[in-house]
């Protein structure tokens, strides 16, 4: 067949050459040839124009950059700084696998340069930790203390890092509301990323998927946002599950189940999109789709006129879906379909519908064309902040295989972006964060912790080595990165924002507060979500989110009862009671320390934090119910969910890792020191507001600068604790 096709091609091409020889044929190019010639000519012309402009303007741009950054350039100790973030890499596991020879590349990095633990933030949560990384500040200066915060007017949970509202002004035309302006999307993280400071000195940054960078802020470089980028519905990821089974429509955390009816070989349903802001009362936009069953394990999906072959157990590629709002306005999204079964019941899983990077509905990159550039360069990719659907696996609607597929796919997409950046940026900063490490450990820790409640009967499961395989894969990634950075001008750091541990038991802090008399429930209030069952007129403290406890302060909360003058004493009282709190049933320490947030944070936003930050012991965490403000009747809950590993514990117990291809001569490096270190290595003065201090990084020959910029800043040079 292949030979036949080749032969046919040769004949056709020969024929075409001969036909082109016809003297009059030149005029008769027609549309087909017109497409070919026209589109190529435009591209060629644009390429020529852009190339010529770049070459002609380059000396001017270079001069401008030189003048602006000459001070830094003169003191710079490196040309390129590469930071590879492996979200949640646990140092004890890294040490174990290195000792067993399973991570040769990280071992090599350790031998050649540095491997040490990296101090994390309180609380050790990714949004908090990465915000401290990128601002070089403690959370009191960047305003991110948890994934969630609470609305002080109604106590409802809100996303802490971003606020999204519709356009402020609209023009009402009958049933339509025409927006007069863009949606109001605000980054609630404060403080300036260190790459912005670098940019002010003419140093370019290539920043890929660092959490809490949505909406993308302008700076000198390119950036793709990550954690907290919403899906098209504005949520942090809502999957859809279509089933023809008898179960009625169900609500799951992080997703919804829709009942469908099979008619012959056809199943028709719809995808749920964002609310239609254009037509008042129209509700959520819908995109109809149809699945035609073509075999016992195959079907054809038709959506927006596009046909996609589905096979049971295999994800479709990213499919572009359009939601029509009216007046010709469409919103583009992408999602993947997973046909799980056809018989006896039809089951179809659809990933959260994500912002299409080729036509982004929200500012997920800077400049805005950067997400499109990546889409054109490597194909469509996941844009959702938490792209891996942990809720789908928790709800047992996804299997381990299905979830791992999402993680591996996201990592592959990320790897392409990262290496493209490394290829392109030879002078400047490259940062890329891989968060599959975090997700897989969250969901597969039950396989390496035999004492975990979800471990029972899983000794022979297929993915019991998922975490080990993950670490090996990350080691391969590091190996490739080392190869791409194998020059004298690149400093490479491999870091994690925190470590990982088991999450066996959840503590319902609202129950504890109730038992201690700090929280009172309304009659019938138990079990209600989002603190709806709390009697605010008698409640002094409450728990919401993963990080800690809030006081119900008069004048701050709308129904506050705690006098601000008594707040310090109450915080102290709670800290004393909670520090060393034990799980009597298991005879284990549940809470290692409780912190008074006003004492551990400094900065203008410290009053926005939960009043107490809880440092749980290993194996414990806030319970699922307490995190969503749903008081139960039990203080401790066994965690039997797939989400079995966590890191929301005492920060002292869960440091991250720091590997570097150079020796580092600093005791107890912290995540927030890395931004200042990068600035220092590029010869840029560390801004006074940063809490981090530059680490003392050796030169290529292994010697530490005697008159280094780190010392020159007046920072304390610390004694080496380099592990080699």
């Amino acid at each position, binding site marked *: 067949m292949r030979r036949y096709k080749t032969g046919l091609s040769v004949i056709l091409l020969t024929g075409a050459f001969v036909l082109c020889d016809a003297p009059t044929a030149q005029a008769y190019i027609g549309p087909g040839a017109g497409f070919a010639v026209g589109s190529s000519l435009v591209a060629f012309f644009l390429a020529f124009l852009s190339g010529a402009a770049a070459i002609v303007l380059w000396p001017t*741009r270079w001069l401008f950059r030189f003048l602006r950054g000459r001070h830094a350039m003169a003191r710079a100790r490196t040309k390129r700084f590469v930071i590879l973030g492996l979200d949640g890499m646990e140092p004890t596991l890294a040490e174990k696998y290195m000792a067993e020879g399973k991570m040769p590349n990280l071992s090599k990095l350790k031998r050649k340069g540095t491997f040490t633990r990296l101090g994390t933030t309180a609380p050790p949560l990714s949004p908090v930790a990465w915000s401290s990384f990128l601002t070089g500040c403690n959370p009191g200066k960047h305003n991110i203390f948890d994934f969630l915060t609470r609305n002080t007017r109604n106590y409802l949970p809100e996303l802490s890092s971003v606020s999204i509202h519709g356009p402020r002004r609209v023009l009402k035309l009958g049933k339509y509301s025409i927006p007069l302006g863009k949606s109001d999307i605000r980054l609630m993280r404060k403080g300036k990323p260190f790459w912005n400071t670098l940019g002010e000195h003419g140093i370019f940054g290539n920043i890929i998927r660092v959490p809490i960078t949505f909406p993308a802020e302008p700076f000198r470089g390119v950036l793709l946002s990550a954690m907290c980028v919403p899906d098209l519905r504005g949520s942090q990821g809502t999957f859809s599950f279509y089933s023809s089974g008898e179960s009625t429509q169900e609500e799951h955390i992080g997703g919804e189940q829709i009942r469908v009816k099979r008619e012959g070989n056809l199943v028709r349903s719809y995808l749920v999109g964002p609310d239609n802001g254009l037509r008042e009362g129209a509700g959520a936009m819908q995109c109809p789709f149809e699945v035609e069953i073509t075999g016992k394990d195959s079907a054809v999906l038709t959506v927006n006129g596009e046909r996609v072959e589905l096979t049971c157990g295999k994800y479709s590629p990213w499919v572009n879906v359009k939601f029509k709002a009216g007046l010709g306005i469409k919103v583009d999204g992408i999602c993947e379909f997973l046909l799980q079964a056809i018989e006896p019941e039809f089951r179809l899983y659809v990933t959260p519908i994500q912002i299409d990077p080729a036509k982004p509905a929200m500012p997920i990159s800077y400049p805005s*064309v950067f997400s499109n550039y990546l889409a054109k360069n490597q194909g469509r990719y996941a844009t959702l902040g938490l792209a891996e659907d942990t809720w789908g696996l928790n709800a047992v609607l996804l299997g381990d295989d299905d979830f791992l597929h999402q993680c591996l796919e996201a990592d592959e997409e990320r790897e392409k972006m990262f290496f493209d950046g490394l290829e*392109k940026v030879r002078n400047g900063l490259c940062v890329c964060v891989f968060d599959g490490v975090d997700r897989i450990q969250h969901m597969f820790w039950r396989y390496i912790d035999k004492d975990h409640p979800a471990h029972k009967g899983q000794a022979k499961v297929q993915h019991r080595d998922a975490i080990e395989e993950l670490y090996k894969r990350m080691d391969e990634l590091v190996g490739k990165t080392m190869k791409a950075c194998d020059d004298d001008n690149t400093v490479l750091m491999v870091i994690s924002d925190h470590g990982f541990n088991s999450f066996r038991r959840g503590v319902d802090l609202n129950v504890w507060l109730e038992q201690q008399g700090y929280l009172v429930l309304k009659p019938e209030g138990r079990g209600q979500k989002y603190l709806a069952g709390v009697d605010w007129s008698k409640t002094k403290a409450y728990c919401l989110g993963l990080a800690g406890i809030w006081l119900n302060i008069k004048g701050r909360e709308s129904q506050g009862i705690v006098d601000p003058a008594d707040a310090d004493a109450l915080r102290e009282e709670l800290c004393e009671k909670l520090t060393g709190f034990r799980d009597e049933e298991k005879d284990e320490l549940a809470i290692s320390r409780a912190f008074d947030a006003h004492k551990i944070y400094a900065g203008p936003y410290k009053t926005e934090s939960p009043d107490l930050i809880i440092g749980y012991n290993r194996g414990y965490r806030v319970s699922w119910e307490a995190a969503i403000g749903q008081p139960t009747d039990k203080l401790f809950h066994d965690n039997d969910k797939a989400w079995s590993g966590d890191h929301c514990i005492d920060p002292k117990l869960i440091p991250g890792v720091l590997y570097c291809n150079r020796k580092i001569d600093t005791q107890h490096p912290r995540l927030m020191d890395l931004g200042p270190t990068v600035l220092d290595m590029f010869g840029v003065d560390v801004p006074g507001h940063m809490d981090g201090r530059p680490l003392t990084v050796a030169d290529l020959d292994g010697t530490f600068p005697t008159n280094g910029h780190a010392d020159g800043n007046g920072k304390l040079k610390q004694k080496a604790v380099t592990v080699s």
Partner: protein
Amino acid sequence: MDTLGKILVDGALAAWWLYEAIIAVLMAGFSALNVVLDPVLSTVLRVLNPIANIAGDVVYGMVSVLSPAWGLVIISAITGVVMLFLFKYTSNQTAIVASKDAIKANLLALKLYKDELRVTFLSQWRLLLAIARLQWHMFKPVAIVIFPMLVGLSQMGIRYQWRALRSGEQAYVHMYLDEPLSHEVALEPVQGVSVEVPAMAGEQDYAWRIRATESGRFALKFLVDSEMIEKELVVGDKLERVSVERAGANWVTQLFHPIEPLLPSSSPVSRIEIKYPDRESWFYGSNYWVLTFFVISMLVALVLAPVFKVKF
């Protein structure tokens, strides 16, 4: 400075010489292929032309109630749609999209990484490769489409490039021979056509000046020695197909003059040509019709491509 100038001039000359050499080689290749494929294509056209003529008559018969301009618009639009579908189903749409994405990505890379001169050159190079790939993927559908396209265009050409003689108008008729003049040649009188100037002999051809005296489709009869050869003459005001030339077995002439049968290979006459007047209109007249056709068919294809999900 002189040395640099000399190097530049020599370099430019060498590049030009190389270009000329490549063109010469290509042309030689084409000519050689032409020699090989001419008998095949001639045979194909001999079969195809009568069918195309009938199809042309049917199609243009249907639009004949409209003005020539509207007829051209409709036919161009329909051709655009047909070509769109032909393109869709004969091309590798996935590969075309990938090539176009690569072009866009590299154009964006030029903008995003403009400070890195190395990236500028790298992206330029990759851009050229992507354009070459796109051209390659375009070539197959173009190669498939070009032959039927040429046949269709030739049917348009015989209607729009020239117009029929009007009653009372004069024209020259040329008869070209294979060898220098050594034959007895005569143009027989025909009702409706008068011969104003009898045969004027050139080096290897004869010319007559004729005048049409009434509308109709006439057969001019030439007596060459004892052999009778006919050539069609069209007189009238409507949009009618005209056959400018009756020729021998060359496939190119056959392609562009499809109406009349080929001259017998034994005939001493190589071709007979009537100098019809050009059609005068800036929209559908001589040469303009190609432009109009091109613009309309392209526009229709461009507008409908997203509807039919065709990528080019």
